[in-house]
């Protein structure tokens, strides 16, 4: 047993990719599979540097399809396995993720969003929301945490491993190129000192005993002979997902009780929203802040409560309405006007949101 990668806790000043690598090591992740794509590369770079010190393994695969399927193989064999990707890589990754959905494999994927569609930019966007929440040829049976700060990137990467292994749904940490490359302080820690109990991994294949003699063989499939078989299987999965959703959904909000305008955003844009709303409130304006931390499942109850009380909701995102669509589906029936501030593939700064709210208040 190698020593713990992080003793106790300490302040660190890191890039987001470095944060993810540290968090994965702290989460007792044992093996990473990956394929190079900007802006997530340094996750692999830091992981491979730390790997020999802490008995961790890595395989650079031939593409993201293989990275995802080898990750599936890793968890089948009973290790906490993960991968990281972005953009066109995320597109390819959806195939193995859909197998993980069907077989309920606890794989963890870090996505650092870049511009889209196609190769677009290597820099930044929030355009992988559709893909990450609902990619593949299914219904999106997965859990997606959208982080805003390096502290959250660390906290939620740890949480993602626990969520995945506790509930057995593929779990994502949805970051972006800004988070990947920027540097800011955070506290990194050994989960144990924070009282976080790590859910242990377990084997799907290769359990002790002779199959057919000492135990039934594990036989997993993702294709069924009859439509009724599939319907029954999916019925159970949807029921499971619905049951656990309230335990998993998370949000952050303030000032929404009597707000005329509620600003909503997710991920890094929520930082801009938060500081803009604070400034607006300091001026005595009735503006609130609402941010889903989980994009799948969404915190539907809180969202509906908040949206139904507001006069207007400003939706800010670095995409052309992908987040907005999720919100509207959850808010169906609520007549509060939803005003867009969409900047696909481009950052949204505090000033942008501040100015937009001022215009809305003036109109």
């Amino acid at each position: 047993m190698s020593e713990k990668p992080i003793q106790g806790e300490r302040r660190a000043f890191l890039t987001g990719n470095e944060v993810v690598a540290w968090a994965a090591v702290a989460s007792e992740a044992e093996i990473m599979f990956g394929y190079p794509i900007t802006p997530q590369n340094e996750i692999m770079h830091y992981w491979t540097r730390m790997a020999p010190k802490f008995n961790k393994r890595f395989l650079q695969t031939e593409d993201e399809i293989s990275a995802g399927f080898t990750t599936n193989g890793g968890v089948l064999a009973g290790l906490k396995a993960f991968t990281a990707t972005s953009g066109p890589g995320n597109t390819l990754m959806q195939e193995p993720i859909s197998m993980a959905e069907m077989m309920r494999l606890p794989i963890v994927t870090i996505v650092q969003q870049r511009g889209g569609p196609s190769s677009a930019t290597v820099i930044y966007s929030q355009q992988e929301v559709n893909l990450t929440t609902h990619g593949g040829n299914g219904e999106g049976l997965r859990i997606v945490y959208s982080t805003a700060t390096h502290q959250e990137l660390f906290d939620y990467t740890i949480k993602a491993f626990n969520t995945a292994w506790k509930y057995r749904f593929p779990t994502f940490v949805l970051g972006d190129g800004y988070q990947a490359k920027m540097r800011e302080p955070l506290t990194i820690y050994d989960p144990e000192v924070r009282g976080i109990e790590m859910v242990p991994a377990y084997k799907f294949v290769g359990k002790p005993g002779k199959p057919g003699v000492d135990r039934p063989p594990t036989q997993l499939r993702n294709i069924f002979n009859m439509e009724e078989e599939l319907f029954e299987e999916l019925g159970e999965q949807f029921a499971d997902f619905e049951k656990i959703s309230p335990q998993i959904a998370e949000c952050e909000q303030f000032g929404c009780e009597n707000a005329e305008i509620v600003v909503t955003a997710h991920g890094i844009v929520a930082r801009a929203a938060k500081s803009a709303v604070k400034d607006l409130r300091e001026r005595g304006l009735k503006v609130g802040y609402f941010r889903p931390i989980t994009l799948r499942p969404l915190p539907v109850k809180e969202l509906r409560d908040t949206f139904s009380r507001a006069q207007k909701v400003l939706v800010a995102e670095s995409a052309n309405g992908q987040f907005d669509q999720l919100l509207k589906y959850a808010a169906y029936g609520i007549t509060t006007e939803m005003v867009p501030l969409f900047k696909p593939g481009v950052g949204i700064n505090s000033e942008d949101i501040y100015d937009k709210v001022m215009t809305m208040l003036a109109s």
Partner: protein
Amino acid sequence: MSKVIKIAMAGEGGQGVQSVAEIIAAAANDEGKECLYIPNFGVEQRGGVSIAFVQISDEAIGAPKFNTGDIVVALSERAVARTLQYVGPQTTFVYDASLNVSAEDLPKNAKRILEIPAVEISKNELSPRVFNIIIMGAVVGATGVISVEGAKLAIEKQLGAKFEKQPKLRELNFSAIDRGIDLVTKAG
């Protein structure tokens, strides 16, 4: 807006704006402040203008980039053109005296425009190697966002290994930062 010092620095690849930005941010972190540093990266980085964004505050920092900086530094003609968008009525705009720019190329709306002879000083008085440290001094002097001691400690941390081998380098770097601070504080 909450009090956050916003710094944008731009130059050509090799002028060292990213290292300086990182050292400033690291110094702020060491002083226990909230800080955020983000480079521009990607295709633009290869052969384009390199820009670094740094924000320092006592409170949590919002978006990683900003529309208007408190101090904007441009170290090449192209960098001047590229950074005009970050200049506003609160901005101190700093550029090097060696640049071939006319008054029309410079921002019209800045609070203050400072021309500093960093290239000349680095060539004639110190060493071209410490050009970016003079710039760092200028930023520290103009913003007061980190202490001079903090800045020197951060340089020591970054370049300590080199200083062990060549102790003269330490002196050179520290002179450079002092000269940089002088340039902006004496410019009034």
